C-alpha cells in the first residue's frame, strides 16, 4: 500500500466524456431505427460509408499526433504505430462514431448516377472530419461541427445530383423529388427574388403537418421522423448531455420569428392557415434535427450561460432569414456554421462572465429586434409574397 501524493480536490464526480458521447449515440438510436425501417439497406449503406470515411481518419490522426518524438535514432513504422495506438481511446472512437452517424443522416440516400452517392459520402465525410475537426486539433478544439461541414461540402459539390426517393413508408405518391429537401420542390415554380414557398406549402399533401411529423415526406433520411428526434431530445436533456438553453432559445426564437412572419403571410394570402404555416416551418427541413443533434455539440458552443442563449438566438435568426429570403431553401446548416464561427467571440474573456448583466440581455434583445425588423420590413415591402 502506498500513499498517493496529489493535490486537492480528492473527489470527482462519477461522470466521463465517454458517458456524454455514448448518450448522444443512444439519443440518435431512435432516428437510426427509423431510417432502417424506412430506407432499409440504403440507410445501412450510408452509415457504413460514413464510418469508413470518418473513423479511420481519426485513427490516422491519433497515430500521427502520437508518434515517437525525434530522439536521434530511427524508429520503424511499426514502433510509431505501436506507441500511437496506445493513445487511441474509447472517446476517440465514440466521437467519430457520433460524427459519422449525424453525417450519414443528413445525406441523401441516392444520386442520379447511382455510384456518385459513394463518392459524395466518402469525400463529404473525409472533408468534414479533416477540415472540420482534425486540423484544429481533434476532439475539443474544433471550431465547426464536423458533420455540418461535411454535409455542406457534399451538398455544394454534388447537390444537383441528389435524389430523394419515396419508400413504402411514404403514402404521398410523389414519385421522386430531385434536387433538395421538400422545401426545394416547392421553390421550383417561384418568381425570381420572391419568397417562394410560403404560400404553397400546403400543396405537399392534404395533411402536411401530420405527414411531416411522421416523416412521410421524401428528404434526407435522418431529418424526417420528428417523433424520434423529440425522443432523442428528451433523453439528451434528462441525461444532461446537451444544454437545454441552446435548444430552448433556438426553437423558441425560431417559432417567434415564424409566428410574426406568419401574420404578414396570412394578411397577404388569406387562404393560408396561420397555425399550419408556423407548424410547417417548425417541422419541415432540418430545424428539429439541427437543434437537437448539431447545435447542441458542446465543443462548438459558447461556454458561458448567457452566451449560450445568445448563440441559440443568433442561429435561429440566420435560419429564419435564409429560409424566408435566402437563395437556399434550407438555412439550418449554414446558420449552425455561422453561429459556430461567432462562439469564440461570444466567449471573449472580458464579456464572458457567467453573470447575466444588463448589457448581455441588451445584446440578446438587440439581435432579436434586428432580426424581427429585417423580417417585418422585407415582408411588408415585398412586391408579392407568394404565388
Amino acid at each position, binding site marked *: 500500500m502506498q500513499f498517493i501524493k*496529489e493535490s486537492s480536490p*480528492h473527489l*470527482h464526480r462519477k461522470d466521463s*466524456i465517454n458517458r*456524454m458521447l455514448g448518450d448522444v449515440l443512444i439519443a440518435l438510436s431512435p432516428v437510426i431505427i427509423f431510417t432502417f425501417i424506412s430506407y432499409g439497406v440504403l440507410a445501412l449503406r450510408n452509415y457504413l460509408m460514413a464510418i469508413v470515411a470518418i473513423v479511420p481518419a481519426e485513427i490516422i490522426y491519433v497515430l500521427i499526433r502520437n508518434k515517437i518524438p525525434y530522439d536521434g535514432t530511427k524508429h520503424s513504422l511499426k514502433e510509431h504505430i505501436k506507441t500511437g495506438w496506445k493513445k487511441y481511446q474509447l472517446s476517440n472512437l465514440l466521437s467519430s462514431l457520433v460524427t459519422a452517424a449525424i453525417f450519414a443522416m443528413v445525406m441523401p440516400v441516392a444520386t442520379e448516377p447511382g455510384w456518385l452517392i459513394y463518392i459524395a459520402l466518402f469525400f463529404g465525410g473525409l472533408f468534414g472530419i479533416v477540415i472540420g475537426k482534425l486540423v484544429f486539433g481533434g476532439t475539443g478544439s474544433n471550431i465547426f461541427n464536423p458533420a455540418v461541414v461535411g454535409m455542406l461540402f457534399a451538398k455544394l459539390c454534388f447537390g444537383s445530383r441528389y435524389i430523394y426517393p419515396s419508400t413504402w413508408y411514404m403514402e404521398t405518391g410523389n414519385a421522386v423529388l430531385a434536387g433538395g429537401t421538400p422545401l426545394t420542390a416547392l421553390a421550383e415554380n417561384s418568381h425570381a427574388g420572391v419568397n417562394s414557398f410560403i404560400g404553397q406549402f400546403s400543396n405537399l399533401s392534404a395533411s402536411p403537418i401530420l405527414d411531416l411529423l411522421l416523416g412521410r415526406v421524401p428528404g434526407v433520411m435522418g431529418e424526417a421522423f420528428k417523433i424520434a428526434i423529440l425522443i432523442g431530445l428528451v433523453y439528451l436533456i434528462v441525461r*444532461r448531455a446537451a*444544454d437545454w438553453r441552446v435548444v430552448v432559445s433556438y426553437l423558441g426564437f425560431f417559432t417567434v420569428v415564424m409566428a410574426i412572419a406568419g401574420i404578414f403571410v396570412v394578411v397577404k394570402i388569406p387562404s393560408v392557415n396561420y397555425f399550419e404555416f408556423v407548424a410547417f416551418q417548425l417541422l419541415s427541413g432540418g430545424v428539429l434535427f439541427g437543434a437537437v443533434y448539431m447545435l447542441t455539440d458542446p*465543443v462548438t458552443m459558447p461556454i458561458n450561460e448567457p452566451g449560450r442563449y445568445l448563440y441559440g438566438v443568433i442561429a435561429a435568426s440566420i435560419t429564419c432569414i435564409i429560409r424566408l429570403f435566402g437563395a437556399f431553401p434550407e438555412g439550418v446548416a449554414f446558420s449552425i456554421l455561422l453561429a459556430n464561427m461567432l462562439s469564440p467571440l461570444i*466567449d471573449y*474573456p472580458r464579456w464572458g462572465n457567467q453573470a447575466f448583466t444588463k448589457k448581455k440581455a441588451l445584446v440578446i434583445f438587440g439581435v432579436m429586434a434586428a432580426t424581427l425588423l429585417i423580417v417585418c420590413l422585407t415582408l411588408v415591402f415585398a412586391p408579392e409574397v407568394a404565388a
Partner: protein
Amino acid sequence: MILKAITIEDTKGLLGMLPTLHAGVPDRIFIATDNARCPKCDVYVKEGDEVKIGQVIGMRHAAFFDQPIHSTVSGKFVGYEKHYHRSGKLVNFMVLENDHKDEWDPSLQPRSDEEIAKLTRKDFSEILMQNASVGLGGSSFPTYVKFNTDAKIDTILINGIECEPYITADHRLMLEHPEEIIAGIMLLQQAFNCKKAKLCVKSKYKDLKEVYTDFLKRYPDSGIELCQVGNFYPQGWEIAMIKSATGISVPSGHLPSEFGIADFNVSTVVGIYQAIKFNRPVIERYISITGDGIKYPSNFVVRVGTPLKEMLERCGGYKNPDVDKVFILGGPMMGAALPSDDCIITKTVTSVIVLNEEKHEENPCIRCGSCMMSCPAKLQPKLIMDAVKAMDKAKIKELQPLRCIECGLCSYVCTSHIRVTDIVRRAKVIAKLP
C-alpha cells in the same frame, strides 16, 4: 454532463450519528515548532525540563504577529523529531514525554464572572493573543486580529456549516456541547457590543435544529438565533455564508467587518470561551477519522499533538491494505494529501480522511461548461486554463485568478477529469508576477 454542482456525494449520514470518543492522552506528545503561517520559532525550554499543561514553551514568529506555543501535556521535554505537518511539509516537532499527571500550569487561573463582565474588545484581543487562539475551522488565521477592528459590528455569524463532505467533527461538537457554544457566543456579543448573533447550520441537519430550538428557549433575551442555510458546497465559505445568512454580498478584497459582520467557526467559539473563562489554550479538539479506506470510521476528542498512527489503530487500521490510498488531512475538497501517515494532529486538523485511490483518465476538454457554472467565485476556469496553456500573462491577469478560493469544484465537476484547480493555482502564481 452539463450540470452545475450543487451537492457532493458523501457519507456523513452514519458518522454524524456516532458519539464522540475520548481518545485519552498518548505517552508522547508532539508540538510543531513552526507552521504554515509562522516560518520562524524560538524555544524557551531545554531538554529535560519539566513542563505543565498550558505552559508557554516557545514563540512562533510570523510576518505581522507572534504566536506563543503551549504545552498540551504535563511531563518532560526530551528533544526534536521530524514529522509531517498538516500542510504536507516535514517539520520539526518538539517531543514531550507524558507523566500522566495532567497538571495545569498554576499561573492559569479561571476568571470570575465579574472580571469577565469588565473586559473590553481590546482585552479580548490581548487574552486571545496570549492563548494563541486561531481559526479552528482549518484556516489557522489568528483570531485576535478579528478583534482588532474598531468597526461597528451589527451581526455575529457562527459558522457551523461544515460544508465539506465526510467531516462531522463540528456537527458532533454542536450536538454534544451546546452550552459552551452559547456561552462563547455571549462572550462575543459582549466583546463586539452587538445583540444579534446567528448560528448558521445546514438545513438538512434536523437534529441540530431540534437541539438548538429547545436549548435557546433557556436564553430568551440572548439575541442568538439559529439560521438554517443551504446544503450546497461551498456554503461554509465565509462570503457564501454571509450572503445566505444576511443577504449582504461582500466583494472580494474587502473584509466582512467593513459590512458590520464578524464571523467565527464553532470550534473557534469554544476555544474563545475556554481562553476567556478559564484562561486556557486549546489543548483538545474534535476530529473525525473517516473515508472508505478506514475500517471503523469514528469521531474523537484528541489531545493536540497526538500522533495520527495511534488514532488510526483505534479505528481498526486500513481497509483493503493492498489498494493504494489517498491520505488527506482536512476535507476531501480542500485538504492536503500527505505522502505518509506519520503525522501529528495539530490544532487545525479537522479530520483525517483515507480514500481508496481511483484512477481517472484525463481526456481533452469538451467545453461542457460545468466548471464555469459551478465556480462559486464566478471565475471562468476553462478560459483560465486556455490562457495558462498559451502562457498569455495579460489574459490571465484579466481573468482575475486571484479571486479563486481553491474550493476544488472545477476539478470535481470536470467531465474530462482534468485537474482544473491545479491549473488555476498555476494561473494564480503567474498572475502574481509583475
